[in-house]
């Protein structure tokens, strides 16, 4: 909503300067988003004197002028018929941007071979008048060289108000002025409706029937005959320009002017185009077609309220007029409409037709149901006055459903309690009265309040408390502190561990990524998910901004692979990223999806950034696995096994390079090398390794309490065993077998070496294990250890069909 300072001054005295005014409006809840000095461009236009004007040698209609700028004399080519010697003119210098030059600065140039160093302007070019026939002739007493802004003392500001939807009363300048008046302890000054001579009786010319009072509780109309359509006078055009509206003709301009003034949208019909000279307000038939003023054919529904004449629809009620009854150059009989329409009905229609106008903006928020007639009379009088028309006596006022004012009881005590204030009942009363609430004191704690019609936002006592707070000033409410508990709150497990895991991953060299939750629906294909995979159940978004944000993600992996591509393209080859985030498996578009939080990571490039003391080494499966292992161990998750994914289970990871992570009997996630095809699908050049864990399953594997063990007192003894096994024997299985031995003195086992190649038969590999033995109550003797070690080794060798080297 735009308002101008000078226009506001018509309705309320304003003593504050523009900065103070905009600050106090903002603090009253009418946020001033921008303040623009309207005539700033007139700082670049100066008062100048035409010393001489001679005919252009090559063009009959042009003059070549010597112009005195106060500093020097320059040459300007001018096309105006009234340019002549001795004239005081408005001269725009090169670089000036005028409202009529569409943002382009004026340039020095040559016109038909004669140089021109400026432009002598007409009133319309400067938007300070309507005369377009010639250049503006300024008072000869003005000082040559002064800026026009100074010389004409023109000053106005346009303020853009970011109005919240609860304040439609401020969608008219009178409403904004009312707020200013309240601050100044005065009241708003309504514009005068001129009492013009009227004749005849409107009822003899036209009738109005409301067939659907629910959607149109009130419809008023006035009639002006013998009107003459023309351009509006300058003052009217200036008002519209000051709030960003474009003047069209006197009748349309007046309806816009009065709408801006009162907040009540108006519509003017050409009565000659209304068949049977009557107005019928009723719903459209489903599927009817209608062409609106903007030249578009609209399909109507049975919920759309139409303004019709005796035969046909002539306007979409409260939304936009129709072409068939538009005011044209030859219109003489103007039927003026001012009505109150149901806000929800207007909103539905505007949404359905995808047609938002200044009128729908106001009607759907709620215009003043008691202001209908005032706006009608104000506009009718202006039309009669400015078009030279004749006002027909009387108005039509069909009002089947009368507006009922909101009546409320307000408790002083509750108001003070909710706001943290200590206002007296009189002070509360005064605040409410300052914005035109009718207030009476019922008892020592209770006020009886009647809301004015224009305050459609007020329906509960709390709405009045807000008024009190706002008018008292939020800054006057003392800062207090609620009684705080003596302990701070602990984060829930899900938050606590998420934070903890993030910190651990950080220490493991991983950086956190956050990707959008929506992706393109082609990602299921890019990941090569099979037809029956749950992750193909994608939840679609009806109104995505772009196609690649069209569905909710069912995997975190695509985002991470895209991040990898982005970073690789920016010469960051080495990357370790992780992300915590939800995936969404659709349960159908009409239900909430199943949201599961995932923890995933991608690593690619070198094991570390290139350094001087070590050759660069590429990351492998085991780097990804190591991160997961370390994480799970730090979380004290026990009984974790990593088993190879079968060929069928490998969807986007490569067979033979993929493992599932199992804790107890629950699958937590997977680790793997990204399949070559998937790499190609995501346009990746480097090898990438991913891990993907269900956070919920991970969390459920975390033990409730931490068990510690005492430090050993006696030293341990280690023994190694090296064996040659077939290549497809998994080291994990051997480790598992070892760990299964119920041997009291056997403490732990780890893989100490893997060797394939020279000296080892094709199809075999050499695996070495280091076993640790320890007793709780004595230092172990070699002999005893050897016996156990030999025994265990023997059993392993038999079990895995191994050979000793």
């Amino acid at each position, binding site marked *: 909503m735009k308002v101008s300072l000078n226009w506001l001054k018509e309705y309320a005295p304003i003593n504050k300067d523009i900065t103070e005014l905009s600050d106090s409006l*903002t*603090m*009253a*809840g009418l*946020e001033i*988003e921008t303040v623009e000095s309207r005539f700033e461009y007139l700082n670049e236009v100066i008062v100048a004197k035409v010393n001489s004007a001679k005919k252009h040698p090559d063009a009959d209609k042009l003059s070549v002028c010597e112009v005195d700028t106060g500093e020097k004399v320059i040459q300007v080519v001018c096309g105006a018929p009234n340019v002549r010697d001795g004239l005081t003119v408005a001269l725009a210098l090169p670089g000036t941007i005028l409202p009529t030059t569409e943002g382009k600065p004026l340039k020095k140039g040559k016109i038909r071979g004669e140089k021109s160093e400026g432009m002598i302007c007409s009133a319309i070019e400067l938007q300070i008048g309507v005369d377009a026939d010639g250049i503006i002739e300024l008072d000869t007493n003005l000082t040559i060289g002064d800026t026009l802004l100074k010389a004409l003392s023109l000053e106005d500001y346009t303020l853009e108000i970011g109005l*919240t*939807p609860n304040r439609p009363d401020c969608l008219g300048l009178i409403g904004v002025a009312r707020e200013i008046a309240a601050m100044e302890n005065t009241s708003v000054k309504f514009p005068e409706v001129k009492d013009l001579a009227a004749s005849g009786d409107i009822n003899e010319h036209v009738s109005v029937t409301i067939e659907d009072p629910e959607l149109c509780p009130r419809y008023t109309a006035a009639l002006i005959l013998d009107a003459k359509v023309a351009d509006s006078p300058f003052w009217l055009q200036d008002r519209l320009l000051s709030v960003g509206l474009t003047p069209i003709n006197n009748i349309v301009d007046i309806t816009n002017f009065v709408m801006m003034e009162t907040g009540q949208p108006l519509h003017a019909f050409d009565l000659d185009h209304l068949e049977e000279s009557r107005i019928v307000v009723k719903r459209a038939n489903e599927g009817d077609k209608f062409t609106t003023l903007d030249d578009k054919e609209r399909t109507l529904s049975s919920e759309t309220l139409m303004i019709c004449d005796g035969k046909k629809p002539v306007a979409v009620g409260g939304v936009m007029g129709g072409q068939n009854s538009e005011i044209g150059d030859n219109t003489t009989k103007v039927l003026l409409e001012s009505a109150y329409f149901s806000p929800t009905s207007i*909103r539905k229609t505007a949404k359905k037709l995808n047609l938002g106008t200044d009128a729908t903006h106001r009607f759907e928020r709620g215009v003043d149901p008691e202001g209908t007639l005032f706006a009608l009379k104000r506009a009718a009088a202006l039309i009669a006055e400015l078009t030279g028309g004749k006002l027909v006596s009387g108005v039509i006022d069909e009002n089947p459903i009368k507006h009922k004012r909101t009546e409320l009881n307000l408790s002083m005590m509750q108001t003070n*309690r*909710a706001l*943290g204030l200590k206002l007296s009942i009189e002070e509360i009363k005064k605040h409410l009265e300052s914005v035109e609430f009718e207030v009476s004191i019922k008892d020592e704690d209770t006020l009886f309040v009647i809301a004015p019609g224009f305050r459609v936002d007020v329906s509960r006592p*709390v*709405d009045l408390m*807000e008024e009190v707070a*706002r008018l008292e000033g*939020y800054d006057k*409410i*003392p*800062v*207090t*502190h*609620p009684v*705080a508990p003596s*302990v*701070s*709150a*602990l*984060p829930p497990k899900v*938050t606590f561990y998420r*934070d903890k895991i993030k910190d651990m991953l*950080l220490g*493991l*060299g991983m950086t*956190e*990524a*956050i*990707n*959008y*939750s929506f992706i393109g629906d082609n990602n299921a294909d890019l990941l090569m998910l099979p037809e029956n995979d749950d992750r193909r159940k994608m*939840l679609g978004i*009806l*109104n*995505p*901004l772009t196609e690649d*944000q069209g569905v909710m993600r069912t995997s975190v992996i695509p985002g991470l692979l895209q*991040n990898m591509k*982005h*970073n690789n393209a*920016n010469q960051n080859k080495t990357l*370790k*990223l*992780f992300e915590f*985030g939800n995936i969404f498996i659709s349960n159908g*578009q*009409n239900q*909430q999806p199943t*949201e599961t939080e995932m923890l995933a990571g991608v690593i690619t490039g070198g094991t*570390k950034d290139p*350094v001087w003391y070590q050759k660069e080494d590429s990351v492998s499966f085991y780097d990804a696995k190591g991160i997961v292992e370390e994480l799970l161990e730090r979380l004290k998750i026990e009984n974790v096994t990593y088993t190879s994914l079968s060929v069928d289970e490998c969807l986007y990871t490569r067979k033979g390079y993929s493992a599932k992570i199992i804790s107890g009997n629950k699958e937590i996630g997977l680790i793997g090398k990204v399949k070559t095809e998937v790499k190609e699908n995501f346009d990746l050049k480097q090898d990438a390794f991913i891990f993907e864990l269900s956070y919920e399953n991970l969390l459920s594997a975390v033990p409730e309490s931490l068990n510690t063990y005492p430090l050993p007192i006696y030293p341990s003894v280690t023994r190694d065993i090296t064996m040659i096994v077939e290549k497809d024997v998994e080291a994990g299985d051997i480790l598992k077998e070892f760990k299964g031995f119920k041997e009291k003195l056997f403490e732990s086992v780890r893989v100490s070496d893997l060797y394939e190649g020279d000296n080892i038969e094709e199809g075999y590999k050499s695996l070495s294990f280091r076993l640790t033995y320890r007793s709780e109550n004595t230092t172990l003797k070699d002999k005893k250890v050897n016996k156990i070690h030999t025994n265990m080794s023997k059993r392993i060798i038999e079990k895995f069909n191994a050979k000793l080297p």
Partner: protein
Amino acid sequence: MNKAIEDIQKESLEEIDNAKDLKELDSITVKYTGKKGFITSFSKNLSNLPSEERPAAGKKVNEVRTAFESALAEKIVSIKREIEEADTGIDVSLPGVRPAQGALHPVTIITREICSIFSSMGFNIAEGPEVETDYYNFEALNFPHNHPAREMQDTYYVSENILLRTHTSPMQARVMEKEKPPLKYIVPGKVYRCDSDITHTPMFHQVEGLMVDENISFGDLKGVLTSFIHQIFDEDTSLRFRPSFFPFTEPSAEVDIRCVICRGKGCRVCSQTGWLEILGSGMVHPGVFEYAGYDTEVITGFAFGMGVERIAMLKYGIDDIRKYYENDIRFLGQF
């Protein structure tokens, strides 16, 4: 025989004394105490001596060995010391061996900061679904159907009744539906609005807060949010509460802080106003309490919500919000 051992002693000690480096000492060690060294051989040959000579000879050879070994040890220490003296050291300007360390996303850093401030004031953390129903996102928060207030947020719809939550506020309704006052909750999480430019991304993060009890006032709201802002920015940050409108709070207040960029003089970031909108807040609307079945005569409360990215932008001076979701490590590595 005795004489010979005395010669060995004399010669070995002289050799040790004259040795120049550790390598030379190594060969001296081999020469005298190695498997076939002079002292070793002498010990081995003791058994060949007549039995009455053996004790004296044995004693002597042990003396020689002890003297040899202590001279050797001394010499090693002194040579090592010389080596250390002569050593000019390493190039300490070469980079160190650094264990790799990752970085947290700035949104996480700021979310944690916000949550820890409120946790210390006794607020509990709750989380909720990101794909919500119209009921929780709008209706239970007092947004009527077909009301322009719904336009304040550009909503992503999945179907008529299912949408991506436009704010973390649905958790207000969810929490109040389950629990009775007193309540103190904050809700961090992702939210979605279909809007994208230099200051808006279609997904961003909010932290919602809710405090409900008997006798909570607007003054308390000011108190809690003032302490929060002084902690997250600094004690000198001035702020103002100005009237605004949210369907689920009344009175509603927008909280502005003095522009951290221009210190209130007016700049591009604050649209020349000198103020920056930092969070929305207000007293919980009785309509919302009614949905939860609370007694609106007794129960009052306040709610607030803030954008994490916006606070991060101001704290870190980030000018393009879209950078948050490119996950460029050159960006992420800065935090």
